[in-house]
């Protein structure tokens, strides 16, 4: 295994691992009793209803659940990006960094702005459109860096961009391209490079591979894992694809209707899912050996879950 050099060549990101990930028991991000509320015509709705979990240093933690389960809202709440009239009504978002602990829920807007990208970064959902169509890739790096360090020179920015593009396995010439000149996977890797511009402690990836085909999906995930190892960050991965998650995360939290119903290591979740919703999620995965397993596995607990869903959704009966 030869160590990759810092040259401009596009190297396969994960073929040779430089750094091995160290997962410790030391917490990096602790979310305690997080509640996000949206006022509606039919009363207040808690999209996130008392979610607590801990993300350890160097760990990959997956948040999984169906659409509307509150997993993306949880991610946005950590970034303090909930749009009014929605708001965080309670909870603590503790970031353990530089020997101290900050509760991000209590920071001022300006303090929180400084935290974004430098301490916690997020690769947003639908990254296909996450780059400004009229600005070149290098302008995006410039904007991100200048927002946190107004004194950064052109040379410093160009230098940093080179490092970042190499880290995600893109050629340096990508800097001068416009987003529409990049493929979907390349765009996504640019987004990953942007998210680690300031070497944050936590990277939140909100379904970063939606709308990509499986081959590109795999490479994007490898890139994400690779850069995580390089900068030693923790990753909070939000998604709904249990198969994808199984290959990537260490632990997983299953969200259902705004609550975290089950948290365990990925092995335990697959081996012995406790919550009926988790069981349903796993049984929904297609398998090679059991065709139509989903239909066959419709057990009593599945039926209970289905009835539960039906009861809470007006206008359906089963």
């Amino acid at each position: 295994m030869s160590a990759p050099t810092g040259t401009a060549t596009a190297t396969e990101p994960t073929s040779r691992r430089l750094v091995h990930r160290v997962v410790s028991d030391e917490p990096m991000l602790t979310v305690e009793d997080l509640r996000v509320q949206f006022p509606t015509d039919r009363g207040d709705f808690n999209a996130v209803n008392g979610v607590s979990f801990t993300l350890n240093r160097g760990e990959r933690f997956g948040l999984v659940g169906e659409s509307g389960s509150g997993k993306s809202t949880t991610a946005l709440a950590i970034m303090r990006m909930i749009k009014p009239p929605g708001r965080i009504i309670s909870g603590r978002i503790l970031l353990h960094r530089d020997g101290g602990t900050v509760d991000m829920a209590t920071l001022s807007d300006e303090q929180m702005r400084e935290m974004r990208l430098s301490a916690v970064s997020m690769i947003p959902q639908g990254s296909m459109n996450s780059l400004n169509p009229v600005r070149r890739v290098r302008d995006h790096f410039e904007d991100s860096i200048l927002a946190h360090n107004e004194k950064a020179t052109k040379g410093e920015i160009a230098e940093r961009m080179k490092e970042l593009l190499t880290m995600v396995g893109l050629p340096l010439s990508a800097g001068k391209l416009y987003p529409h000149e990049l493929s979907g996977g390349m765009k996504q890797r640019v987004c990953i490079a942007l998210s680690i511009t300031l070497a944050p402690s936590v990277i939140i990836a909100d379904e970063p591979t939606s709308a990509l085909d499986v081959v590109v999906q795999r490479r994007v995930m490898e890139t994400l894992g690779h850069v995580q190892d390089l900068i030693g960050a923790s990753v909070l991965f939000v998604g709904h694809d249990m198969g994808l998650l199984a290959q990537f995360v260490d632990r997983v939290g299953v969200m259902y209707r705004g609550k975290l119903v089950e948290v365990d290591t990925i092995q335990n979740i697959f081996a012995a899912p406790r919550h009926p919703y988790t069981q349903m999620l796993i049984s929904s995965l297609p398998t090679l050996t059991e065709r139509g397993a989903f239909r066959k596995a419709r057990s009593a607990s599945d039926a209970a879950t289905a009835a539960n869903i039906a009861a809470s959704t007006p206008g359906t009966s089963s």
Partner: protein
Amino acid sequence: MDLAMQVEEQLVNAPPDSGLRRRTTWKYLRRNPKLVVGALMFLGLLAFSFLGPLFVNTDEAAPMSAMPVTAPSREYPFGTDDQGRNLLAVAVVGLPLTLQVGLIAGVVAILIGTILGLTAGYLGGWVDLLIRGICDILLTVPGLVVLITVAASIKGSISVQTMGLVVAALAWMWPARTIRSQVLSLRERAYIQMAKLSGMRTPEIIFREIMPNLLPFLAASFVGSVSAAILASIGLEALGLGPQSEPTLGMTIYWSITYNAVIRGLWWWIVMPIALIIILFLSLFLMSAGLDEIANPRLRKADA
């Protein structure tokens, strides 16, 4: 996967084909004849007003400098008026003055409109409510009545610059409304979310992320504002509320009406300013429509 990577790299590293870019620009211009024809007409008018003084004695734009009431002839191609002005000289001097009024009003209107539109659209909430409210209320006010009142209340003779500002005073609401509506759509784009997630400040997001996306739209509405301002200023001048001592196109119409040019058969007196105004508006309209096609690709026609 390695193969895919290599192909990708080759694509990215391929030298940009500058010839291709030139060809596509040409092809694009051919598909957008409105912009080309409009711009050429406008350039012709500019050449007329800037090169004109080299061939025409502009002193003859003043009264009592030529034989009065002569029909177009070899000596006076546009004829002369009742007061002894050479109407060709009046056209050469008056057109840039009228353009100046339009440009001053257009620039001021777009500037105010852009700032208010961006602020209202991006910030939303009560700021939006306030700005939109003011715009809506002012839009219901009949502009000409207010302009007449303002123009009439200015003591003494009004200058071309003041004229531009008077017109601008009621010309910024429409740009503000339309720019706001554009921003409402732009601010929901994923890349604005990305900019916020990168910790960019609100002014940075507005001017570095949203503004570049608005440029074609701003160009189109700027041209639109200039023509609206010229129309408003000519309307005021034709009523006699313009700069009395300047031979602008609108003032020429005013004098020709005052001295009963049409009844007395002095048709060339009123035809000159009106013909110039028609050419000017045609060129501005064509440019505005052409720019609109750039800003709004749905208006584009398929490649012929």
